[in-house]
């Protein structure tokens, strides 16, 4: 059991992936059933918009949790779930945007353009969505090979900024009670904070070690002088 958790076999990973996939679909499934049964309250379109938006944020945060969790638990196979979780964040973002464009505005492109240009909370939300597209598009192994690991990684670091835009989008939309967006903001701050801390540790580690190159340099110079 413990061994499985430490280092699951290929088949076990496939099973875990399948289970996580189904669990990630549950909110969508629940909302779809609610829509069908008219069980989403007095304002079902608002419920759908709100829920799909919150699930986008949650999946973004869950995706950002993979690396710290992996580092602190040593469960390195968690990394193999990250792409799926990130793609679920994108899927819920698509559902969120579709609900807004179709159900809420009913393809009133003028009103939508007005919203994107004039309403800062919609501007940042839309920007976050647009920035997610290249990440989703380059999530396959082929794209990683094509881009090269380093370039792929620096592109995908933009997810930090996207998550910030997502929380700002929620923060600016709320009328008065900031408790919920505050909770997302605190979690995001912790997830980004831990990365900043690692970076700082790495910097200190590099400073602490005397660069061995210095001695060599001198020797080289001396040799040349002789």
């Amino acid at each position, binding site marked *: 059991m413990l061994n499985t958790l430490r280092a699951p076999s290929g088949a076990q990973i496939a099973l875990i992936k399948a289970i996580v996939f189904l669990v990630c679909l549950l909110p969508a499934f629940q909302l779809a059933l609610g829509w069908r049964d008219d069980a989403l309250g007095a304002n079902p379109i608002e419920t759908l918009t709100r829920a799909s938006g919150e699930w986008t944020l949650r999946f973004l945060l869950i995706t950002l949790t993979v690396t710290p969790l992996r580092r602190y638990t040593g469960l390195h196979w968690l990394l193999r779930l990250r792409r799926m979780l990130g793609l679920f964040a994108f899927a819920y973002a698509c559902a969120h945007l579709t609900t807004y464009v179709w159900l809420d505005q009913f393809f009133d492109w003028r009103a939508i353009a007005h919203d994107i240009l004039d309403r800062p*909370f919609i501007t940042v939300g839309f920007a976050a969505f647009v920035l997610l597209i290249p990440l989703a598009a380059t999530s396959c192994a082929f794209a990683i090979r094509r881009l090269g690991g380093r370039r792929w990684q620096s592109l995908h670091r933009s997810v930090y900024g996207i998550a910030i835009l997502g929380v700002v989008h929620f923060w600016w939309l709320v009328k*008065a*009670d900031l408790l919920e967006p505050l909770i997302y903001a605190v979690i995001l701050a912790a997830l980004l904070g831990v990365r900043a801390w690692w970076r700082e540790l790495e910097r200190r580690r590099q400073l602490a070690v005397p660069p061995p190159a210095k001695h060599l340099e001198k020797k080289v110079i001396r040799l040349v002088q002789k």
Partner: protein
Amino acid sequence: MPEPIGNFSVCSWTLNFYCSVFPTLPVSEHDIMLIRPTPDIRPSEITSRALFEDRRRFLARSGMGLAAGAALWHGLGGDAHAAAKLSTVASPLSTTEPLTDQKSVTTYNNFYEFGTDKGDPALNAHRMATRPWTVKVEGLVGKPRTFDIDDLLKLAPLEERIYRMRCVEGWSMVIPWVGFPLATLLKEVDPLGSAKYVEFLTHYDPEIMLRRPVLAWPYGEGLRMDEALHPLTILSVGLYGEVLPNQNGAPIRLVVPWKYGFKSAKSIVTIRLTEHQPPTAWNRATPQEYGFYSNVNPDVSHPRWSQATERRIGELRKRKTLMFNGYADQVAGLYQGMDLRKHY
């Protein structure tokens, strides 16, 4: 005491995920008080068999044991008031538009004292005892007086007023209120010539209400004297021919149909006539977004969203918002010569 299951319900648990982690609304002995029968309600008026059966069917369909248990608890005790019928006379000021269904009117509410999610008031407001209840009328009046709620109910014939209600968030309803003109009450206390404004203060009890200072409690609202005396302005004590449910502002609330919903203060305890414009809750919270007047106006956007359209609850497509919520013929004169962009 069975503890109501907080904010947990079948359809909205995703929205309430974090609220249930942070319970802010304590339960107290006030739960018990509401079950006590009130003097003016005969046992025969309490929840009819048919209505009760209806609820049982609804609960059976909703299917989730815990949530159903909580709702059943409310059904037996908490809603005893709501089923009491009121006799009313029709009003020529009513609209003939189709009504928003009663379930939506009583489960989709903004009553921040009971939680900031629109489902919260229906779950939590049963904690508020609406008897005994008095409304103090004071300030610049010849005859200041404290009215008992049961005397207020007999002050004037109760009218059914079917009004459009437009929320500042962009949704609207058509609600059959039961009430009487605010002017009737104000005449009883003999307003002085110096009275220019009317301030409304609402019930606040930290034991049973939100303690986080989301707004400045108690919630305060205000009207100019001519707005307060306008025949469309009523004090409501019921809806759908029944005593006002707690989540809708029982036992007595203001209804000003040409202004955004938040102007219509709920569960009023003090009415004060003043010379100067009183502070109002949303204006204090975000002055650049919510003005003192807050008349429904499709041409003046909320800084963060458009007010040009609205979604009528129960409808899928948005409809155009009307100036003064469609009451321009009756109220536009009150604002003649005023710049409504400045006095939003």
